[in-house]
C-alpha cells in the first residue's frame, strides 16, 4: 500500500532551481534510502514533505490525502516526522519540552482555567520513551544543550517516535555518531520497519544505506534519477548513479575502502 507519493515536485529559491519535478513513492513499512551528491536537493525535497518548504508545483499525497496545502503542524498530526541533520532542538529547554514542543498535553488549573501544560504527564511520557529507546540520559529535567551529541540525537529520535508516526524521515542520522551509536540507529530503523512504520533515510554512508533499506532512490540534479531495489544492486551501481558517469571505478573503490 502506497503511504506517500510525490508527483512532479518543483521547488526553486529565487533564480536557483533545486527540484525539477521529482517523483517518489514510499509504501507503508518500507525503508527507502535517498542518496545523492551534495546539492542534489535531498534536504530540500524532505522539507517539502514535512511542509517547512512549500513546493512550487506538483502533488503530495499522504495516506490517500492531498497534503500540499497543510502546514508543518498539520502534517505532523497526520504522522509525518523528521529527524533533522542539525537535530532542530531547543537547547535551553529540557527533554520533555523538546519532545512535546507544539503538542503539549494540557489540563485545567484548579479544575478551572484550561490550557495549562501538564508537565507531570510530559515528564512521565518522556522518561518512558527514552527508556524504550534504551538510552541513558543524566536527567530529563536538564536543558538539552548540556547533553552530548549522541544524547541529543536520542532526544530528537524520541521526539519523532512519541506520537506514533507513520513515516519517519531521517536526515544524516549517523553522520555525527560513534560506531556503536550508528549500530543502534540502524537497529532502530529495522525495528520501526517491523512495526510497520515507513522510513526515508538520507545518508552519505552508503554501507549503512545498503544494509538497512529496501529501496534506494538516487537524486541527481533535482530529479529522481534512479530507483534501485537494494537486494539487486551493489555499491558500484549506486555510486555510478550518484556521480553519473565519469570516473566511476575510482569513486566506487574509494567508497569501498571508506
Amino acid at each position, binding site marked *: 500500500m502506497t503511504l506517500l507519493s510525490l508527483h512532479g515536485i518543483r521547488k526553486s529559491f529565487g533564480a536557483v532551481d533545486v527540484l525539477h519535478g521529482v517523483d517518489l513513492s514510499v509504501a507503508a513499512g518500507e525503508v527507502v534510502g535517498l542518496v545523492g551528491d551534495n546539492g542534489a536537493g535531498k534536504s530540500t525535497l524532505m522539507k517539502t514533505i*514535512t511542509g*517547512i518548504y512549500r513546493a512550487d508545483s506538483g502533488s503530495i499525497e499522504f495516506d490517500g490525502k492531498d497534503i500540499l496545502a497543510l*502546514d*508543518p*503542524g*498539520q*502534517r*505532523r*498530526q497526520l504522522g509525518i516526522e*523528521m529527524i*533533522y541533520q*542539525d537535530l*532542530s*532542538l*531547543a*537547547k*535551553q*529547554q529540557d527533554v520533555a*519540552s*523538546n519532545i512535546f*514542543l*507544539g*503538542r*503539549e498535553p*494540557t489540563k485545567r*488549573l484548579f479544575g478551572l482555567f484550561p*490550557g*495549562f*501544560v501538564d*508537565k507531570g504527564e510530559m515528564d512521565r511520557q518522556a522518561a518512558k520513551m527514552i527508556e524504550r529507546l534504551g538510552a541513558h540520559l*543524566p536527567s530529563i*529535567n536538564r536543558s538539552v*544543550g*548540556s547533553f*552530548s551529541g549522541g544524547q541529543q540525537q536520542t532526544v530528537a529520535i524520541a521526539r519523532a517516535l512519541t506520537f506514533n508516526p507513520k513515516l519517519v524521515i531521517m536526515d544524516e542520522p549517523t553522520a555525527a555518531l560513534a560506531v556503536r551509536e550508528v549500530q543502534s540507529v540502524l537497529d532502530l530503523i529495522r525495528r520501526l520497519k517491523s512495526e510497520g512504520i515507513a522510513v526515508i533515510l538520507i545518508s552519505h554512508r552508503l554501507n549503512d544505506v545498503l544494509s538497512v533499506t529496501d529501496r534506494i532512490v538516487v537524486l541527481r540534479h533535482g530529479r529522481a534519477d534512479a530507483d534501485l531495489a537494494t537486494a539487486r544492486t551493489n555499491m558500484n551501481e549506486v555510486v555510478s548513479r550518484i556521480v553519473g558517469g565519469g570516473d566511476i571505478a575510482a569513486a566506487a573503490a574509494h567508497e569501498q575502502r571508506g
Partner: protein
Amino acid sequence: MASETTQPGFWARVQRASVERLHIRLESLVVLLALSAAMALMSPYFLSLSNFLNILLATSTIGVLAIAATFVIGSGGLDLSLGSVMGLAGVMGAFVVVNLGWPTVFLVIACILAGGIAGHINGQLVTRAFVPAFIVTLGMLGLARGLALVISQGRAIYGLPPEIVYIGQGRPFGIPMPVIILVLTAIVAHAVLAYTRFGRHTLALGDSEGAARAAGIRVEHHRRIIYTLSGALAGLAGLLFTARVNAGDPTAGINYELTAITAAIIGGTNLFGGRASILGTMIGALIMGVLQNGLTLLAVQSYYQQMAIGAVLILAVFIDQYQVRKESRV
C-alpha cells in the same frame, strides 16, 4: 567528560533547583538582599513600611514594562520602543477623555489600544517586512514619541477624571493601586509564560526558531502576538503613570526601556532568547527600584542614578554570558 562523572557542588545544585522549580536565578535574589542590606545600613529611612511601599510604587510602571521586555526578549526579539509607546499611550488616553470629552472608561481603553496598535505595527514590520527588530522598534521609539508630542502639542494634558486618579493614587487596604495592578499583571504573566503552551512556545521560539518551525509552531504569527502584547503592556504602564501624575505627559517614559530591559536581564532573561521568567524579572525590577530609592535616600544626584543603571545592564549581561559560556558544551 568530567562534568558527567563528578557530582555538581551544593551551590550548583541549589542554583539548578531554584531555576527549575521557581524559575528564579538565585544570584539575582542574593543581589537584591545584599543591596537592600547595604541600603538599610547606610540610610535609617530605608527599612520602613512606607519606604517599602514607595519602592513598590516607583517600581510599578517599570515593572509592567519589564514584563513586556521579558516576553519579547524571551522570544528572541527586542522592543526598544517600550518607553515611547508608554508615553504615547498616556497622551492618547488623556486626549480622548479631556480634549474629546469621551467617557472616563475610554481613557483606559485608549491607553491599552494605542499601545497594542503600536506594538502590532512593530510585529507586522518585523515578521512581514523583514526589518530587524532592533531597527523597527528603534524607529517606533522615535515615531511614538513624536506622535505623543504632536497630539499633546508638546504640553501635558491636565484635568483627568477622579476615577482615573484613583487608579494612580488610591490606596485600598493601604496598598497603592499601581502596586496591586502590577502584582496582578505579574501573576497572570508568570502563569502564561511558565505554564501555558503559549509561554512555552515563546521560549522555544527564542531558543531555536528552526526547532519551533519544525515543531509546527506558526512562528511569524506568534511573534506578531508577542509584539502586540508588548505594546499593550506598555499601554498599561502608560495608564499607571498618567493616573499617578494626574496628567497625560508626552515626555513620560523617556529612557524607561533602558531600565525595563535591564530589569529583565538581571532577572535571568537570556538576551538572545530562550530563557526567561516573570518572577526573575520582578526581582530584577525590585533591584532597580531599590537602587534608585537608595541612591535618592543617600541624596545622590539623579544623573548618577542613570549611570548606575547603564553600568548594571552591562554588568548583568557580562555575568550572564560568562555563565552561559562556562556551562554549555558547544
